[in-house]
């Protein structure tokens, strides 16, 4: 059986877990077994609808205290549940919480693990999974040598598949270990799309010359419904908040569309965004290295190009 861990926040299942369910279901199909999901805590989502993503059952440990994430407690419960349910493969989203617990679960189950996976397993020669390495600059095919396997799938690398299934819900009863982490405050930036969950991202660099010029970028993001990001020099100069910094030492993202405005495209920046499906580069310097990594490029002054692009987007949305 393939067991998929469902991550959630503020009573809502994360988008990355939807993808993990479809990924797990595809592995189950390869192995000829069932794909079932595991939820620790409570959510407002309709759990039977997870069948549409590929889960035939949802095992739920229905206890509100688990809505506070505690890596030690969560990893221990997942490992125990996986053992009881006799799971062969345990799938996580390679997101913030997945990174904290998947390796611990692997240790507890004596399972080999591949994190940052970006392909279905290749079963021709055992069990090999491809992952991104060198910050997205290369791939490695990793063979898992143990009977049990743990895989954490990169966000936005597999997609969502549709199944004609309704999931059944089964209560799990396990003793809950004492909490090791006390959550004392949660500070969510309201009204913004979290960068790591965003499909569309508009990002600015030093070419915008100063924080006072960010209006054109914000307008474009608003017209698209995109999240905003920036390059390292911009966050280092405090033009934009640190949580917007994408790149090797900032956040690594893989949206469907990344629009880079006034970013030259240093290798460290590319390492954070090169898994984006489509890259648009707007830069007045035709020699900017970013053009080599781009799908579409506009050589021109951002202060003219960006408002024109925003207008074109708005017009397209208006006509829809």
């Amino acid at each position, binding site marked *: 059986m393939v067991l998929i861990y469902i991550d959630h*926040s503020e009573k809502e299942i994360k988008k990355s877990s939807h993808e993990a369910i479809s990924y797990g279901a595809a592995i189950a199909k390869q192995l000829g077994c069932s794909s079932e999901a595991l939820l620790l805590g409570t959510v407002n989502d309709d759990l039977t609808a997870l069948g549409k993503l590929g889960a035939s059952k949802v095992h739920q440990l229905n206890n509100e205290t688990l809505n506070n*994430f505690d890596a030690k407690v969560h990893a221990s419960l997942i490992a125990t549940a996986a053992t009881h349910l006799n799971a062969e493969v345990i799938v996580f989203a390679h*997101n*913030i919480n997945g*990174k*904290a*617990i998947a*390796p*611990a679960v692997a*240790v507890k189950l004596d399972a*080999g*693990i*591949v*994190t*940052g996976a970006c392909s279905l397993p290749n079963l021709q*020669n055992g069990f090999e999974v*491809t992952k991104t390495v*060198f*910050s997205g*600059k*290369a*791939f*490695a*095919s*990793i*063979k*898992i*040598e143990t009977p049990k396997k743990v895989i954490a799938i990169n966000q936005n690398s597999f997609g969502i598949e549709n199944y004609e299934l309704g999931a059944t819900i089964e209560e799990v009863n396990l003793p809950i270990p004492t909490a090791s*982490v006390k*959550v*004392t*405050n*949660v500070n*969510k930036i309201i009204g913004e799309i*979290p960068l*790591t*969950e965003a499909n569309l991202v508009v990002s600015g660099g030093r070419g915008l010359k100063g924080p006072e010029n960010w209006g054109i970028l914000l307008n474009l993001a608003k017209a698209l419904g995109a999240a905003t990001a920036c390059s390292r020099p911009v966050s280092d100069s405090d033009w934009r908040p640190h*949580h917007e910094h994408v790149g090797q*030492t900032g956040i690594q993202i893989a949206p*469907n*569309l990344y629009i880079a405005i006034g970013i030259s495209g240093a290798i460290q920046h590319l*390492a954070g965004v090169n898994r984006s*499906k*489509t890259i*648009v580069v707007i830069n007045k310097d035709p020699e900017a290295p970013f*053009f080599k990594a781009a*799908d*579409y*490029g*506009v*050589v*021109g002054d951002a202060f*003219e*190009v960006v408002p024109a*692009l925003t*207008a*074109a*987007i708005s*017009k*397209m949305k208006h006509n829809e």
Partner: protein
Amino acid sequence: MNILVCISKTPDTTAKIAFTEGNTKFDENGVQWIINPYDEWYSLVRAIEIKEKDPTTNIHLITVGGPEAEPIIRKALALGGDEAIRVNINSNDSYVIAQQIATVAKQASYDLIMTGKETIDYNSACIGSMLSAILDLPFVSLANHLEMNGNTATIQREIEGGEETNEVILPMIISCQKGMAEQRIPNMRGIMAARTKPLKVLDPVATNAHTSIKEFSLPPAKTGVKLITPDQMEELVKLLKEEAKVI
């Protein structure tokens, strides 16, 4: 307080990524090695700041790797660790590495074990989480702020679209990222002192690897950028909608 800082050697961020031996090995030819930036800039520097506030703090550094890892561990000592341990084994399997660190940690009593959020070469982000399972300790990942108050750590960690504040009673494991501290450059006094700081070399404990790397590959080269003139923004929108199908 006793802190163990995990240090990994990685290629420089601008290193050319190429492979040899039938794409089974990373090509180390001409590669400059550095301390993994997350280990150095965030985790080690924060440990040093804690020691500056409380000089009774001991900072031990640990790296798992062959003798070629010694220059980077000397650099880490120059920044400010008290002593270093190198476990003499090269492995690409996170579990093997975590077992080496855990074995050392079990023989001492560390209040805090610090790692970077991931290494910039294999990007596995496994060691902290694995250590928490092997040592049965609390773990907070992707931390960008850490304050000590007696035996309680107050930590801010990244969550999707925000931050969360956690309180944890030591001992614990923490993985660090941007925001935790600022990069430092070792000064001459540090570099001189590092030469005589103890660097212990330990034999590895036998551990079976759970995984092995079979092949590396490079992403397909982009087919070339399609240039659109600044007065053709409606055309660009059309391409994004109909050709790329991303909006």
